[in-house]
């Protein structure tokens, strides 16, 4: 049974990777835009915060903001399935909803990690970003990516149209990354935003990544655990919608 599940999940991973590569536009833009943003705007951050902190802030701002925008990759792939009615078609096979979501999620996770790795690499290679612990950074990036994937999937199973999805991702990403202190440091924000910030997964992403860059294992693990909590919550919502038929195409 387990190896049948693995076979089906493997087939779905291959298929979803193929679909992503057949329509590479969204992926390409979400890979190129953050690199352009970082190159153009890092001087502003360095001027405001000094060379070291400024580069780190610029990299985190780019990484967190644009990875949130990239959530729409998982979202649109799920919503497209609902629009094409293939969601129910695959559900009518022996595929478990967890296999279906895993088959969708893994190619997206790889794409999101690649995006974030590209930003970090540019920061290190071109801007002198210091990474004190690569393993901690990998943990933080992975937990953040899982949170993004879960949230993207949950939202795609809740919305009723591509335009609603686009609005949620674009507006939501900007709000969550701003609340998190990604674009502008929290210290420069009004008090009410500083109080509200911990409710944002973007806050914990910045927290985890800052801690990882400085080599602080305790803070990295704490923040990563919170991100996994967001992941779990989002996955439960996604699974509930997927298994109880409320994500059926007929609901669109």
């Amino acid at each position, binding site marked *: 049974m387990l190896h*049948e599940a693995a*076979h*089906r999940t*493997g*087939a*779905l991973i291959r*298929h979803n990777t*193929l*679909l992503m590569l*057949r*329509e590479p536009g969204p992926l390409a833009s979400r890979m190129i835009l953050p690199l352009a943003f970082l190159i153009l705007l890092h001087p502003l951050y360095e001027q405001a915060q000094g060379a070291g902190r400024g580069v780190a802030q610029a990299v985190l701002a780019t990484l967190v903001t644009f990875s949130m925008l990239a959530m729409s990759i998982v979202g649109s792939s799920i919503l497209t399935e609902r629009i*094409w*009615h*293939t969601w*129910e*078609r*695959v*559900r*009518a*096979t*022996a*595929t*478990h909803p967890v296999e279906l979501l895993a088959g969708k999620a893994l190619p997206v996770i790889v794409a999101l990690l690649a995006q974030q790795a590209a930003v970090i690499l540019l920061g290190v290679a071109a801007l002198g970003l210091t990474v004190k612990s690569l393993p901690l950074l990998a943990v933080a990036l992975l937990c953040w990516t899982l949170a993004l994937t879960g949230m993207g999937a949950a939202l795609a199973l809740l919305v009723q149209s591509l335009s609603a999805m686009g609005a949620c991702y674009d507006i939501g990403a900007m709000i969550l990354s701003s609340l998190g202190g990604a674009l502008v440091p929290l210290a420069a924000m009004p008090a009410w935003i500083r109080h509200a910030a911990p409710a944002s997964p973007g806050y914990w992403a910045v927290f985890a990544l800052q801690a990882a860059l400085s080599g602080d294992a305790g803070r990295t693990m704490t923040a990563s655990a919170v991100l996994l909590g967001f992941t779990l919550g989002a996955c439960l919502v996604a699974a509930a919608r997927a298994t109880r*038929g409320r994500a*059926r*195409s007929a609901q669109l």
Partner: protein
Amino acid sequence: MLVAAGLVKRYGTTAALDGFNLDVGAGEIVGLIGHNGAGKTTFVEIVTGLVRPDSGLVRIGGVNALRDQRAARRMIGVAPQEQALYLSATARDNLRLFGALAGLRRSALTGAVDRVAAELQLTGVLGQRVGLLSGGQRRRTQAATALIGDPPLLLLDEPTAGADPETRGALLAAVRARAQAGAAVVYTTHYLPELADLGATLAVARAGRVIARGAQRSLISGLPGELRVRFDDAGRKAPPSTLPPALADRARNVDGELRIASTNPPADLAALLAAGCAPISVDVRQPDLDDLYRALAKEAAHAA
């Protein structure tokens, strides 16, 4: 192969299914017919596990489909009414995915894709994106995703709706072949002649129940068709005095055409000619689905 008993499904105050019963044996093709809203699609959704019934039983190959959905779904191939294909992928990609989800691997999967494509005349378009295929080619691709893996139970929900004759012919041939190989087939359609081509028995659905079940010939044989005649003074009524009383009782004039409800058109035509009527054209309309629905609705109303 398929046993569905006492299925009930309500959406608010509307009963989509209200005691739906249907048994389909291995090698049997059942034409599930009924007006829109009769419960056909809800039935298919329950059998495939997409919707849970409020009560009732579904067994597929001896497996309780409501308790062990995945074991049941392994035995089903379904082509839903709405198109459900990955438009940005090729026909081959779609078939490979559904073949893999049906448990096929490697050379078995490749062979199955090639075989079902040949059967449904898709070999030449396997490498094309589904979004660029014609409507008929997409219909055949959709059916192919259900047939691949040779499932023991096929659920085909209006697979030829809007299809061209070439597509219809290929699909019907493939369905016949599967039934001959032992698959049980539930085939929903509004087009009775297809069911006659398939040699299917009928299950007539109405208001969430199966109200008639049996061979098409036996269900329809007792129903009157119509003898339609036009006279040499087309456009004016045929003189009623020339019609035998037995025919006049059953006759009505529609746009200058005399239509006589008839269970024996040759005899009625002979009676017409014997009465001295001289039609310039004669046509016989066989009883059809609408006649069956009307007759069954009348019976149900009388029973109520």
